[in-house]
């Protein structure tokens, strides 16, 4: 029974891939997904990437290439963040690498984070990059916030404040650095709190 289950896991076909991709593409994507599973990488983002490609009307080779690139990014992220990295951390790291965040940047953030989860800091970094803040500015700012032990809840508020500022017409980099430095100042004046 256990052997049967394992076999089913290894060759499992996602019905959505079967219905939306042509056979060769589906087979190639499934193979990448199976390899990722064996490497203990999250597989849902890979399936999602293939479905996105199908919805976008992309051809098979482009879809397979995109899925393969994502798998490679997740593998790099896992290598940098370590074997204890969670699926959310790996996904967030791979997403930030889409914006040009390097393995070196990830390693720096990983060191800054210590034992806390990197998911929220990476999400904030990706959000800042997505709003047009330059890579170096965003990475340095998130690194400072993470080293200072700013909690995830405070990072979430910071993210929201930056968004509101930009919606009111502020320059993204100015909004991010102003809010970020304010948060660091406030944190340095408060009694020491353990990071989440």
């Amino acid at each position, binding site marked *: *029974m256990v052997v049967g289950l394992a076999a089913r896991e290894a060759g499992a076909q996602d019905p*959505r891939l079967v219905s939306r991709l042509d056979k060769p593409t589906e087979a190639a994507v499934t193979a990448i997904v199976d390899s990722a599973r064996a490497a203990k990488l999250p597989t849902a*983002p890979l399936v*999602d*990437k293939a*479905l*996105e*490609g*199908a*919805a*976008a009307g*992309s051809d098979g080779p*482009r879809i397979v290439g*995109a899925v393969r*690139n*994502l798998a490679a990014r997740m593998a790099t992220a896992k290598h940098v963040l370590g074997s204890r990295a969670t699926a*959310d951390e790996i*996904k*967030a790291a791979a*997403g930030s690498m*889409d*914006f040009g965040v390097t393995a070196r940047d990830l390693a720096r953030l990983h060191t800054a984070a210590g034992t806390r989860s990197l998911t929220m800091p990476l*999400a904030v970094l*990706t*959000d800042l990059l*997505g*709003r047009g803040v330059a890579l170096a500015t965003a990475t340095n700012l998130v690194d400072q916030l993470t080293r200072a032990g700013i909690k995830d809840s405070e990072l*979430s508020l910071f*993210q929201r404040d930056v*968004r509101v500022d930009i*919606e009111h017409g502020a320059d993204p980099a100015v909004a991010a650095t102003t809010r970020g430095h304010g948060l660091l100042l406030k944190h340095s004046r408060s009694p020491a709190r353990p990071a989440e």
Partner: protein
Amino acid sequence: MRDGDNESIEQVADELRGTVPVSAGFDARVMRAVRAMPRHVRRVSFWSRLTTPRTLVVTPWSWGLVAASVLVLAGLGVVQLSEALHAAAGPAATALFSKASKPATQRVQFVLVAPDAKKVAVVGDFNGWDASHAAYQAKHRGGGVWSVTAPIPVGHHRYSFVVDDSLWVADPTAPRAPDNDFGLPNSAIVVEADK
């Protein structure tokens, strides 16, 4: 002791060592008497029954049968136990259990201004990028404004609007997600759980 006395003692000892002759019906008479006696019911306490060690003899083939039965029953038991817990725990606990097993969702409103559109849908990693998904079809509210409020799992997501089943449009109010893979614009959204 004198020799004469020793001899007497030996004679008495020999006599005592000898078997006692009994009549033929002696055994039968004794057993009849024993059977006729009232049965003495030995009262054993419950605790004694539990703690008294017992010897159980099991043959090798029956051990295999027992092990197989235990495995089957354990497998069935896990399924039935979880179902029983669901049934017995009540709706609140079931909801809590459901929350633990699948991510929570929040109702999120998506708005796009597209005066020339005839159809607008939201696609993303929360609905398999399926433009035909019923829950994510936007309604025209007038003045070229299309909107839909749909359940989105808590977490980080990428999405886009699809106009007239062909044109992908990023959400102008959301941060952009990189579009290196398929050349189409996507937006990013972070859905937070209710505090």
